[in-house]
């Protein structure tokens, strides 16, 4: 069963590449190069080492902004989900935060912080934070009240309540937040890097754009997409499997 699923996945990836190649064959290569050309270009970037330098810069920024937002969102989300007062206080912040486009924050961050590392990290932080908080807030509201009551009956102090009852129920929400936040962070960091930085994948894409090199634009995009794929399979999927090992297998 696992084997046939893997096969389906490979077929799916293959079909994307085929579709890309088919469409590319209809257009001149300066407008839309095919996967082979882009793959070669990406290969060259990887071998020359340029890819890794900019990838590292970008990933570091995403991680910094994301981790900070994650920590704050867990605390804020639990507070909002468990205290009506806090919910009323922070709900407008979350809603306003969700509405402001990431592009605005990227521009504002560069205007406030200039060409520094603080600019992209700040932009990621403020864009990702409301989304993650919303997620943790809903997660806390979904907590099983019966279990919390059980913990009170057994006189569980706050620490035990959090560790044994609350956090395990929030873990699936944390995982969703991780996936979502990471993907969102990547979209914001590229904008930031385009506006006001001199390194990173976004900066390189912008440079390729100025030179009107379609090969390079797509090579950088494809490269980062592959990295995100790797993160999903090497980090998030294994974590997910570990989290639900206590759940019996469901067949529908």
């Amino acid at each position, binding site marked *: 069963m696992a084997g046939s699923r893997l096969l389906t996945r490979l077929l799916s990836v293959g079909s994307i590449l085929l579709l890309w190649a088919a469409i590319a064959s209809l257009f001149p290569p300066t407008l839309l190069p095919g996967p082979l050309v882009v793959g070669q270009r990406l290969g060259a970037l990887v071998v020359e080492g340029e890819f890794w330098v900019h990838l590292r810069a970008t990933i570091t920024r995403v991680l910094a902004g994301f981790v900070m937002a994650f920590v704050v969102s867990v605390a804020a989300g639990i507070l909002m989900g468990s205290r009506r007062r806090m919910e009323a206080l922070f709900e407008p912040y979350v809603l306003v935060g969700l509405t402001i486009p990431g592009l605005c924050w990227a521009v504002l961050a560069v205007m406030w912080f200039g060409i520094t590392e603080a600019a992209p990290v700040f932009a990621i932080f403020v864009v990702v934070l409301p989304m993650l908080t919303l997620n943790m807030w809903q997660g806390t509201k979904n907590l099983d009240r*019966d*279990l919390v009551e059980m913990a009170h*009956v057994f*006189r569980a102090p706050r620490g035990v309540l959090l560790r*044994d009852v609350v956090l395990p129920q929030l873990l699936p929400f944390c995982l969703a937040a991780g996936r979502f936040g990471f993907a969102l962070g990547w979209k914001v960091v590229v904008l930031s890097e385009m506006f006001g930085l001199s390194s990173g994948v976004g900066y390189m894409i912008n440079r390729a754009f100025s030179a009107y090199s379609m090969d390079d634009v797509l090579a950088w995009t494809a490269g980062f997409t592959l990295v995100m794929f790797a993160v999903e399979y090497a980090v998030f999927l294994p974590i997910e499997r570990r989290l639900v090992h*206590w*759940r019996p297998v469901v067949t529908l």
Partner: protein
Amino acid sequence: MKLEVLGIRKEFPLTAGGRRPVLAGLTFTVPSRGFAALVGPSGCGKSTILNIVAGLLESDAGEIRIDGQRLSRRTHRIGYVFQKPRLLNWRTVVQNVEFGLRADGVPAAERAERARHVLGLVGLDGFAGEYPLSLSGGMQQRVAIARALAIEPQILLMDEPFSHLDELTARGQRQELLRFRDKINATVVFVTHNALEAVYLSDCVYVLSARPTTVTAEFTIDAPRTRRMDDPYLIDLQRTVIRALGAD
């Protein structure tokens, strides 16, 4: 320890305004290590009584005494078995049983020893490392009983613990409860709406009225602890209890 529930009154505010009396001076006593069943119609506030004894709710008037002392959540240990098991599905059976002990800060070695003991008592040795969802409903409820027993409670409250099981499983669970009943040091208050279950398991049955609730009748079960469900004496007594409930 002897449990005395004396003149407990409780009203709940209604959303539409006004107050609805739930408990109207409820009084009953359970001797030390006794097993009392509270039988009443649905919605008569049985869970409210247990929640007040457990200290989850404040009563408006009245007093609860344990060996003559006013009940306090701080000094008295009270075990609670809910209608549903309420287990932590992400923790193993033994971790669930140790929950109350961890909450009380009991050291690890003693926790493990006590958990082993109570798991043996409820007939679940060998299941310590399993996760709750891989167990049957009846076994999950016994894990919940073991969790309540692990804290060595002075009072054990059971809120219709077998009402969510099918009748055959429930029977098995009641037999199990009778089997280890004598090895428990706690004074037990067992709430149910099932009159036969009440006379089968307990030393004495208190019949409750509909809201506002008071005790309307009291029966002592004069039978040895080893019992059969089809004992004519128990069946007879069950009929009497049902009559007292006024649900003929």
